């Protein structure tokens, strides 16, 4: 029980702590990074850089492991095709990210920073996700 619950909880908590420490739970800072042609705030580049460096090291270890520490097998994305859906979806996501300065992780971490604002964002986000599922179910 503990072995099943603790690792994802710890990973999520580390993730949330990193977001908060890096200032990503403050939409003003995120929008400051996206304001490249105005008063640019480069902080997010350091957050992204730090995370990518650590993960690049983790990716070097992954192929040497027969299986993950707490699971039977690796289950990783393997697609390499570039589709209009990938690019169009990412563009819509980027527009939403720019409008409010929130993406999914910080949106949920911010539930303890500004509960009402974060809850409005997260509810709308889940509604958007559900909408895609609905249209795909019908099509």
């Amino acid at each position: 029980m503990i072995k099943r619950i603790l690792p994802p909880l710890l990973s999520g908590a580390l993730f949330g702590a990193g977001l908060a420490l890096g200032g990503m739970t403050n939409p003003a800072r995120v929008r400051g990074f996206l304001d490249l042609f105005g008063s640019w705030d480069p902080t997010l580049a350091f957050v992204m850089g730090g995370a990518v460096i650590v993960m690049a090291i983790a990716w070097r270890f992954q192929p040497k492991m027969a299986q993950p520490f707490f699971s039977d097998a690796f289950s990783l994305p393997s697609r390499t095709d570039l589709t209009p859906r990938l690019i169009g979806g990412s563009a819509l996501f980027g527009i939403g990210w720019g409008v409010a300065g929130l993406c999914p992780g910080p949106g949920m971490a911010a539930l303890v920073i500004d509960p009402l604002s974060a809850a409005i964002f997260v509810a709308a986000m889940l509604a958007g996700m559900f909408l895609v599922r609905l249209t795909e179910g019908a099509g």
Partner: protein
Amino acid sequence: MTILGFPDAAPAAGLGGGILIGLAAAMMLLGAGRIAGVSGIAARATGISDSGMSRSSAWMFLLGLPLGAGIVALMSGGLDAQFASPVFLIVAGLLVGIGTRLGSGCTSGHGVCGVSRLSKRSVVATATFMAAGIATVAIMNGFGLEVLR
């Protein structure tokens, strides 16, 4: 620590936060054998997506996000934050929800986990949402739209 010319930037805290995020994602990869993509995990927890980790693991990860942020907020005596007004939060949330499902990921799954793996799809997705975000803020500022309260 500050950077000359960017008095508001917090590079040391940013790098420290980034390293924690990287460790969290590395733990998910090497521990559970999965990508720490928050949009995918949120869809999995709520039953919007049927594939991925177990639903209980997804919920535990999501629960951890505000828990970790709350601990940092407590230790630092509160965090500065300025949020958009509700109308903008709703519009943004819908776009983020639709976009991340169509685009198969967000800043964490594509931007951190995919880019560090040099996945072609993730590099293209990240370049796309970065460009779209930068363009959106530039256009909104150009029209003098005040978003943050």
